Each structure stands twice: as structure tokens, then as C-alpha cells.
């Protein structure tokens, strides 16, 4: 029996800054996971990935990351993606200063 598809978001790093970015429904990139497009269908996810990968002039290292629907949009299901969302946890600098509340 095929494994059930886990919802995903498309993520990458911005080409110039290296920041973690997420693909939106509008075919654009955001630095906020909550604004990312949550993909719940596997075939759709693969097609969207191709669209995202075509924007190689904006991003690098595009991939699908597991996510779940939260109250305010997609949320990470694995701690790695949570750190990518929040920035380093050793002290307050980097992305979490601006983009995500500390836990």
C-alpha cells in the first residue's frame, strides 16, 4: 500500500542573501513560512517544484519540506525546518530577530 503523502512546502535559499525562503501560491518567494503554499497533493507538489526550480535566478537548493497546516499557515514538522524558519538558537541574531518569535 503506497505511503500517504505528507503535506509539503517548497523551500530554498535566496540566491543573493542565502536567506531561507518559501514558495507562495503566487509563484513568488517569501521569507515567512506562514505565507508559503501548503501542498497536500503529491502530483501537484511535483509540478509546483518544477515551477519553483525554474526560478534559478532567484533561489538555490530548492526542495520539498514536510509541513502541516497551522492556525496561521504552514508550520514545520521537523526541528531542522523549525531552525531554518527561526534562525540560530544560540543567541538572538539572524533571522529570528525579524521574522519569527523565539520559542
Amino acid at each position, binding site marked *: 500500500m503506497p505511503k500517504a503523502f505528507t503535506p509539503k512546502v517548497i523551500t530554498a*535559499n535566496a540566491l543573493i542573501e*542565502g536567506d531561507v525562503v518559501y514558495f507562495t501560491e503566487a509563484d513568488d518567494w517569501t521569507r515567512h513560512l506562514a505565507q508559503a503554499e501548503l501542498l497536500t497533493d503529491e502530483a501537484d507538489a511535483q509540478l509546483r517544484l518544477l515551477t519553483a526550480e525554474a526560478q534559478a535566478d532567484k533561489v538555490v537548493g530548492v526542495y520539498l519540506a514536510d509541513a502541516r497546516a497551522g492556525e496561521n499557515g504552514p508550520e514545520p514538522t521537523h526541528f531542522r525546518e523549525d531552525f531554518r524558519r527561526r534562525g540560530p538558537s*544560540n*543567541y538572538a541574531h539572524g533571522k529570528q530577530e525579524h521574522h519569527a518569535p523565539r520559542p
Partner: protein
Amino acid sequence: MYDYTDFDAAFVAERNRQFRAQVERRIDGSLTEDEFKPLRLMNGLYLQLHAYMLRVAIPYGTLNSRQMRQLAYLAERWDKGYGHFTTRQNIQYNWPRLRDVPDMLDALAEVGMHAIQTSGNTIRNVTADHFAGAAADEVADPRPVAELLRQWSTDHPEFQFLPRKFKIAVTGSETDRAVIKAHDIGLQVVERAGQIGYRVLVGGGLGRTPMIGKVLNDFVRQEDLLPYIESVVSVWNLLGRRDNKFKSRIKITVHEHGIEEISRRVDAHFARIRPTFSGIDTALFERIKAAFAPPAFREASTGVFETARRTDPIFRAWSDTNLAPHRAPGYAIVQISLKAHGATPGDATAEQMRVMADLAERYGHDELRISHEQNVILPHVHKSDLPAIHASLKKHGLATANIGLVSDIIACPGMDYCALATARSIPVAQGIATRFEELKLEHDVGPLKIKISGCINACGHHHVGHIGILGLDRAGVENYQITLGGSGAEDATLGDRTGPGFAYDEIVPAIERIIRAYLAHRESRDETFLEAYRRLGLAPFKAALYEEAQVHAAE
């Protein structure tokens, strides 16, 4: 110190010019990421978790105040105001923008620095004892040979596409402060019958298959060293596994073929190429050696130092832990801790870098070193200057008296920065250091090396920690395995795994239980943690770690 030649400067300038054009072509779309990636890696530029990371070489950990100030300038101008000193005597900038990196490289070139061969499957930055040229127990300064190897290996056409990265470390003393037994090649300067030569070890390394290096040759003469090392790397370049990344390092080649067979092949290769080395390398070595001539040490009273020790307990505690014996009378080696309790091991702000540069210039013959333990060294300081140095360090958060103690922890960047990491390591180090600061036990515990890696690649050298911690991803949560009894010194040993790992919020208390077990079992304050572990074995520490019932269940 060695000053780079016009040739060196022109070489680096040309590389930087090429890279600037490559970055422009990546940004305008002429180069794909697949095409660009190997080019950026050749210039030390990685893409990490949150940003790019530029790794800058500090060959054999030696730099002068002008270079340190330039590192501070880079941190402020193009990064977030700090740099991270690594276990390979490099500095890493965690937040550069791709567009800015060519300017950063040009700024480095202004002071004879670069990022060449800090990445890729090539011979990496050659590391050395951070007390080089100063240590009281030194046979000879290991930096001239490290510089010779740097010049030989930089852009060496045969060694740009090796099976995997290749690391060389050199020590000039019997005491190993360069972890030579955990390197692909470890060199120890030795003296036999009045002649200086090298003991050559091969096949050490950590990572997923940790191994202690084996002696390949007990004595190689100075004039034979370069062709001998070239032979070792050439033999591995041919024999090394390219079919499996995890079996590609020379430690596996040595393991699969046996040290005798490797020795036979190296000797045969050496016999072929030795006549092609005409002696230019030996002449060059002599020129390099002259550049590393010791500074003009002065003779002066050390009374100020003795008085400060008698009257200032904070200075005394610092001088007890952070100084090391110097070869010259009246001098000391100062170890500046980048491990303030709760700080990120190895991080220094631009301001701190400038303070250290100023101190080196004013009091330290303009020399600084970076240690593989992620601290900064002033190698040549007259003892009469130590109170002034300590006062300045104190003002800038650099006077933590903890060298070699519980909180002087090596920690890789881990998942807070590194794309390869599977768990965090820095917050674990911060947690341990903070806990023992609160307990006020650190000085009672005494010498203890804790080393933490956030993945199996072991950049934090956890296998050779007296207490080693390896962070892993277990079913989607951070989990930390513990090893005990490792050593990265001349008595190099791989630690023993204690058993099941611990969750993130359990690891600091677990380390406390181990250390309390040591305090309970040691014969006296003079018996170090490592000595106690070697006498007692794993059992009492395992019992303390897992509670009695769990030990029985595991047996």
C-alpha cells in the same frame, strides 16, 4: 612571521578576479548553480542553513595584528559583527551576501590572506601546534614546514581532485597540541642523533569511522620530507576509493591495504620521484625558516607579575589556568578564552578581535595564534605585561579563567548554522558551561576536555574528548550520545560509547552526573578525569549516567 611574496599576491589577486567574474555570471544567469557550486567551494564559499558561509584560512593558526584587524573589518563591513574560529584554525563568517564575497576576498588579499583550499577535495589548510615557536617543550618550530607544505599544496595540479579532502597537522613537540593522530597525515618534528627530521603518521581521522593514525615512517630527513609527503598523497590519490564517499579517506585506504603495503608503495613512489626534487625545496625551506626567526626577547623583571599574583585573586586564577610555559626566561604564553560561560565557543566580535590585535601589537611581538580548541593565543608575552593584558581582556569579556576546564568546550557550529548537522551543539555547550558556572565546580573538577559534534562528521572532535557528545536526529528529535575516555593528545584514544543517548533537555544533567561520579571516585584532586576514567573504566560512570536498573537492563 612569513611574508607572502609578490608571486603569492599576484596569484591570489588573479584567483579573486576570476571568482568575481564567476559570481557575476552566476547572478546574471550565465552560470547555473551546478556549474557555480564547485567554483564557489574552491574559494571557501559554502551555502549553509540560513546563509552563505565564507571560510577563511589562517595557515597553521598564525596571524599578525594587521591581519586580525582585517578579519574584524570583514566581520563589521560584510557580516554581523563577529567571526567564528574553528577547530581547523580557520575563521568562518556566517552571514555574507553572495554579491559581497569578492570584495571580502579582495580585502583579505590586502593582508596576505585568502580562502583557497578551505573547501573541496584537496589538501586543506595545514594546521599546527598553536604554541609553535614559543613552547618550552618544543624540538623545533613546526610552522616553517607547515608553510612549505602550504606552498607546495596550493593549486598543486595533481591534488585538486583527490578522492576526498585531506588534512595535515604538524607538531614540533612531544606533547601533541595539534591532534596529529586524528589527521590524514600527522607530522611530528623529532631529533635523532642531532639531526632534525619528521615522524610521519598516516590514516588518522574522526567522522563516521574514527581511527588513530599509524606510524608510516619513524624518521624522514628534512630534505626528503616534501617528496615523501607527495608520495603518500599520490599513492592515496591512486588507491583511494572514489566509488563510496564514506570509504574515500586515506584512513580507509590504510585499513583496507594495510600499513605495510601502503609503506611499500610510498617507498617505491618516493624512490621514483626523489631525484626530481633538485634541492630547491630545501633552499626554500631555509628561507621560510629564517622568516620564522624568534622575536627579540627582552630581559626585564617579573616583579609586577609576582605582585599581581599575590594581591589579585582574579588575576591569579586567570594566570593559573590561561598561561603556559614559554621557552624564553621571563615570558609566558597567554591563552585568551573565547569560551565565556554561556557564549558561543569560538565566536569573537569585531571589537574583541581588535582588542586582541592591539594587545599582540603592544605586548606580544605582533603575533597571534588560533588554537584548534577555538581560542586565541598571544604566544610571546613578557610576564611584566600580564597584569595590563589581563585588565584589558577583562574589560572586553575575554578574561574567562577556564582554559582546559569544563567550560572550555570545543563545539562545531551544529544545526544552528551547518547544513550537514543533524542536531545542535552550541546550545549544549552553552548549557554545560552555564551549569558549571552556577555550581562553582569548574576549578574543583580540574582539567577536562568536553567536545561536541552536531553530526557524525565529528568537526567537534567528540571521539577524542575526555567527554564526547554526538548530536543526532533520532526519529525527528535531537538525541545526544556520550563517549568517555577519549584523548586528542600524544596518548590519543577514541572514547567509549556509554550507551543510549539523551534528549536535548537531558544532556546537561547527564554530563553533570558523569562529572559528579568523577568527583566521588577520584583518588585525590591530582587525579584528572581522564586518569580516573582509565583507572576505573566505564562502569561507575555508566551507573551514574543511567541509574542502576537501566544498566542491568542493558547488560
